[in-house]
């Protein structure tokens, strides 16, 4: 069994503060980056990031036992932001439509967009599980097995979701 990456610090307010500082220094940039990548709004991203770390605090005992706090945080951040985006579906859809128009007009078409941006903008058409799988596979560069373990699904299920996404968007799935 993998060793927890975060040391257990005895309780108390200052200890909690020290722990939060450790999270801030190690994972703040990554979590904020994921929130900003998905939400495209610095204020909304900061709020979402605070929600994610608040969940880590609320679930402190379990979180400290994680062999990879980063993986846990990225999963929660991705899931949380996708839910927020779903709640703001009208805005997301408008952005997607706009992007489709831009693609048709711009020189170079889809290639002119950064690959990660293309991934993000094509997510709106897919279900929640496929969205999470796509982010972890294409953006975090996790293997299919890692995505399956993270999302608690079988590898064939994840493969099927990624293939459906790839077929619809022209992405490649490495088996």
């Amino acid at each position, binding site marked *: 069994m993998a060793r927890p990456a975060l040391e257990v610090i005895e309780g108390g307010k200052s200890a909690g503060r020290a722990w939060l*500082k450790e999270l801030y220094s190690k994972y703040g*940039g990554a979590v904020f*980056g994921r929130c900003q990548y998905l939400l495209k709004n*610095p204020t909304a991203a900061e709020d979402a990031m605070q929600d994610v770390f608040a969940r880590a*605090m609320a679930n402190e005992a379990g979180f400290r036992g994680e062999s990879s706090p980063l993986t846990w945080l*990225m999963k929660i951040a991705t899931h949380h932001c996708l839910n927020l985006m*779903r709640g703001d579906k009208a805005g997301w859809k408008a952005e997607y439509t706009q992007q489709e128009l831009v693609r048709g007009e711009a020189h170079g078409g889809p290639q002119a967009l950064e690959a990660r941006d293309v991934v993000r903008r094509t997510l709106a058409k897919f279900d929640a599980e496929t969205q999470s799988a796509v982010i972890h596979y294409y953006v975090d560069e996790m293997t299919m097995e890692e995505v399956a373990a993270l999302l608690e699904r*079988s590898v064939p*299920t994840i493969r*099927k979701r990624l293939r459906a996404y790839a077929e619809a968007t022209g992405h490649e799935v490495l088996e």
Partner: protein
Amino acid sequence: MSHATELSLRKLFAGEDVGAELKAHSDACDECKAKLRAIEDEQRRFEAAIPFERFAAGVERANRTPRHVAAPPPRRAWLGYAVAIAAGLLVVAAAPLLLRDGRHPNGIKGTDAIELHIGGASGSTRKAQPNVSEPLSSGERVEITFSAQATRYLVAVSVDEAGEVASYPESGQSLPVLGKGHLPDSFEFTGHGFEHVVVVLNNEPFSVEDVRRALRARYDEARGNLTQLGRLDVSGEQLHYTFMKP
């Protein structure tokens, strides 16, 4: 060795264990080192934009008053109907027939019984047979009845031809059942084609997600052929039914 993944490099930055081989590669590889520098820059930009005091205050505030964000709806769920409606349509008589080996014909031990009854708008009902493809007419619903002499725990799961899994309960723990009765809802399966239903019964509570996962695994193994689904890899007794949706 292939390059470190984005996630591995982020783990490396955070001081998490990535394995000696990958660490050695990342120390020597220019491309990985450049990516690692980009991650360091990202953290620096983050700290410049959001100082720790602001971060901590925001997290503590969010911890005190968590935001409620609606979870996505399940991809597919059984359509449930209230007991009052179902009871009017279905007359439940789960009379166990014991075989010599003490098993009910449906495979449940002792005098405990699980039965699936099909009812429709016409008012007529029939009992579904396990392991036989049972055609359903439009609007027909399925009710699960039980007869348990001691408290048992039950989960019903189903999968359609597209591999979408639904369950009752939808999540959490199995449903305790005792005496004679039926599940609070009757169900209409959405979509077309086959629907394979498995009812799992156990003496101890168990996780709904474990059963859903086991069904998904069987579906994947059978490559979506619902007539070839084997026994689920979960403890307890289980009954398999296949329905042909209208």
